[in-house]
């Protein structure tokens, strides 16, 4: 009993100091960022042949590291499964979770996360064979749909098709690769998951050109970085680094022309890049934090095009993920 008390006391001490210090100071003292990512979703988070993490989400980890530590490579990646990811944030194992995680009310409250601006506006969609004759959701009448369990997708599917009075046969799988092979072998007429996931697995199908992603979107899935609830300073840092990538695209600042942008007369740009240092320093970062993030990793468009853009095998249209000036939803508050 005494031993247990002792262990408890030590734990309280450790937790106390950790909280007292704040995540930002902790990361800066450690000299590296711990980032929770996916390793099974090509384009968003995966491991390349050389064993390096790469992907859209992974690059936001690098941006954050560049801003906080001045070095985009000062990141330790933790590959997390869908089940592990929240525990990893709650226990402090990772400083930030950037793992195609949907921003929802219950995750904000019961799970105890704080979500920054979504970096990718996703939605649940459907993949079908081009020659299946399925053009609208109503065409799923009497057909079968493969769906992965343990997510909100099966609930959305039942709700939406139920509301349309479409009767279909669900085939539920636990793992995505299993589902993909069942769909590819023709056990199902359609396959539903987040559109980013569909696009990511499309190139792995037997004959990718025989399949297409339907236009219909049946749910809102804003994916974004999340940090542990209760540390406002760290939350602000992560949030504004994401905004900086949005703003850089809006102002046309890329990793190539950023040094010219330092001469820009635009007060927004000057504040963001730390030419006028007060604003960025207010976050507890060095004045050139956003400058480093964009110089080393790039603005939103660069990150997007590198992993999901037309030159990649995925070629996901920007859609909602365009700047607000281009009809999308990416909108950075002003750097005032």
């Amino acid at each position: 009993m005494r031993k247990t008390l002792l262990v408890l006391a030590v734990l309280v001490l450790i937790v106390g100091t950790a909280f007292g210090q704040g995540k930002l100071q902790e990361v800066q003292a450690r000299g590296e960022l711990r980032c929770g990512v996916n390793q099974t979703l090509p384009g968003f988070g995966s491991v390349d042949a050389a064993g390096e993490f790469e992907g859209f989400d992974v690059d936001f980890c690098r941006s954050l590291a560049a801003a906080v530590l001045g070095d985009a490579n000062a990141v330790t990646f933790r590959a997390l499964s869908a089940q592990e990811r929240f525990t990893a944030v709650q226990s402090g194992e990772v400083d930030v979770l950037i793992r195609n995680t949907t921003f929802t009310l219950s995750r904000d409250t019961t799970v105890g996360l704080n979500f920054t601006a979504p970096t990718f506006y996703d939605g649940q969609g459907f993949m079908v064979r081009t020659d299946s004759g399925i053009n609208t959701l109503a065409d799923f009448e009497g057909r079968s749909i493969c769906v992965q369990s343990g997510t909100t997708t099966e609930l959305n599917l039942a709700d939406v098709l139920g509301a349309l009075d479409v009767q279909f046969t669900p085939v539920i799988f636990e793992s995505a690769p299993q589902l993909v092979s069942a769909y590819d072998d023709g056990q199902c007429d359609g396959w539903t998951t987040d559109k980013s996931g569909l696009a990511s697995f499309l190139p792995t199908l037997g004959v990718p050109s025989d399949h297409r992603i339907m236009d219909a979107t049946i749910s809102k899935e804003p994916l974004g970085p999340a940090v542990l609830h209760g540390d406002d300073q760290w939350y602000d840092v992560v949030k504004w680094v994401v905004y900086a990538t949005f703003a850089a695209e809006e102002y046309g600042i890329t990793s190539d022309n950023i040094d010219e942008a330092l001469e820009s007369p635009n007060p927004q740009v000057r504040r963001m890049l730390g030419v006028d240092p007060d604003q960025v320093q207010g976050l507890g970062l060095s004045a050139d934090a956003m400058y480093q993030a964009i110089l080393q990793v790039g603005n939103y468009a660069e990150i997007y095009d590198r992993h999901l853009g037309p030159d990649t095998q995925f070629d996901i249209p920007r859609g909602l993920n365009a700047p607000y000036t281009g009809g999308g939803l990416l909108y950075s508050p002003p750097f005032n």
Partner: protein
Amino acid sequence: MALADRDPVLRIPFWRNVKTIGILAQIVFVAVIALGVFVLVTNTLNALGRANLPADFSWLGSRAGIPIAETPIPYTPNDPYWRALLIGFLNTLKIAGIGVILASLIGIAVGVMRLASNWLVRSIATVYIELLRNIPLAVQIVFWYTAVLLPIPPRINNPIEIPGGLYLSNVGLAFPFLYPTYRFGAWVPWLVLAVVVAVVGVVWRRRLAQRSERPVRVWPLPLVALAAIAAGGYYVASLDRTLPDGLAVDFTIDRGRGVVYRDLDGNGVRGPRDPLMPFASTIVRIAEAELTASTQNITESGQLVRSTFRFPMILERNVEAAVVDFGDPEEAAERGFAIHFTRFPSRGVVYVDRDGDGEFTPGEESDAETGIGYGGVRLVMTVVGYERHIVADRDGQVRTPAFSPSGTVRSAEVAPALNPFSVFGGAAAAESRDDIVPLEADVELLPAGPLVLSRVHVPVSSYEGGMRLTVNYLALLLALVVYTSAFIGEIVRGGIQAVAKGQREAALALGLSPSQTFSLVVFPQALRIVLPPVISQYLNLTKNSSLAPLAGYGELFVIATIVQNQTGASVPVALLLIASYLLISFVFAFVLNIVNDRLALVER
């Protein structure tokens, strides 16, 4: 005096009294256990409370919203969680029950084969057992599912047709099945009577056999009586050809779907109170309609199939006439396309008659230079006089192919770009269908006997009618049966070998044939030895069915995992899981132990 002096010394204080100590120790022990349980329970409840996770069972009544493919009892996603879990439980029973029977049959056969005098038979059995016993079950499930049942059978719209109305595809196996109709109730008294007569008959024959000197066959006469009374009763019950009051069909032709119901309030519209009519016998007639399909190049059963088209399965005998033509005849003429049917009118290939012999020659279905098939060629089937006998399913539903009105073939570019913001994106598309003139379908309801034979058909792209076993179920069943039968085989072999050699020799010496020796002397004795270990194999099979996620079969464990994920009620769900598996195991053990007791040697 001396005794009196020693008395106070002899009186043992109560705390040193063995009896008291014993009682006290038990009280302390119980208290410690109770405290331990209390700490565990409150700790868990506190932790769950802090995380806002449910620790009770109140969520069982909320709407589940989970789609489930195989439901032994009616179910929709609007049903509560408890019903979803019940379906999982029934699905577990479905796989365990059938699995146990099949595993026993195969296991006994293999066990006997292992002792055969024929070298080949013996070796086959040995290889079977050694191979299957030593491969982990999970590997076998994945093997049957992803390496055998998914890639090898053809796709659903080109199934293998086995005589007797069976269909096999990589969606599953389906076969005709008898279902009880609304008139089944009229037959039930006859069935009861038949069973009673048969039981009385058996008792009577047994008595007779005991009294008689000559051998009396106990079973044939009562069984004949049973069959005769049941058949007579069936005939009498079928005599009344009237349909139940208010029987009606609500058929939505553009969805190709209808519901048979009883219009109890007589308003001519299907209301929520009107009961559905399961297994009603109907004839659906459609005067003229169209279907479209496009050619595709697909991999099927490991082979590349080029330029193939598959309409929904329409049998020639179901239509007066069917004509298949190109959706764009001008383009087809320009490219020199012709149609070759592999099964008129639903399946075939599009080809270019390069050698000019006027008929299809293999190789002509793909481009001579590139070797690529002609994909995406649109075809239209015009059907005249469609007429099909369809037995409604358990939910009173009848389904036909989703015909389009004749002459108004939908263009391929229907899909309007849906607003990604609108969560119910398809609604707009559904509205756009209102401008299509509805087709006319004539649905006739037929009177039925107590049972109706429901045949399998493939109106869209899944089986309708009959009994359907999904490929997920089959894969899990195969793996479980094959794996467990290897163990049972070894147990059976051991049991047979444990029967004393003299028994066999004595039986042969008495003049019994080898098969009689086995079935009358050796096997009954072996059964006594075999049964206890086989019971534990049955329990193993039941518990191993929780590997179902590997095959995508929705049994208890799979559904419980989903429910736990949705509700966060991990502890209550785990408790329910434990209770369910315990219940199944206890019932199994209870029943089989009774059998065991009856079989066991009665020693005096």
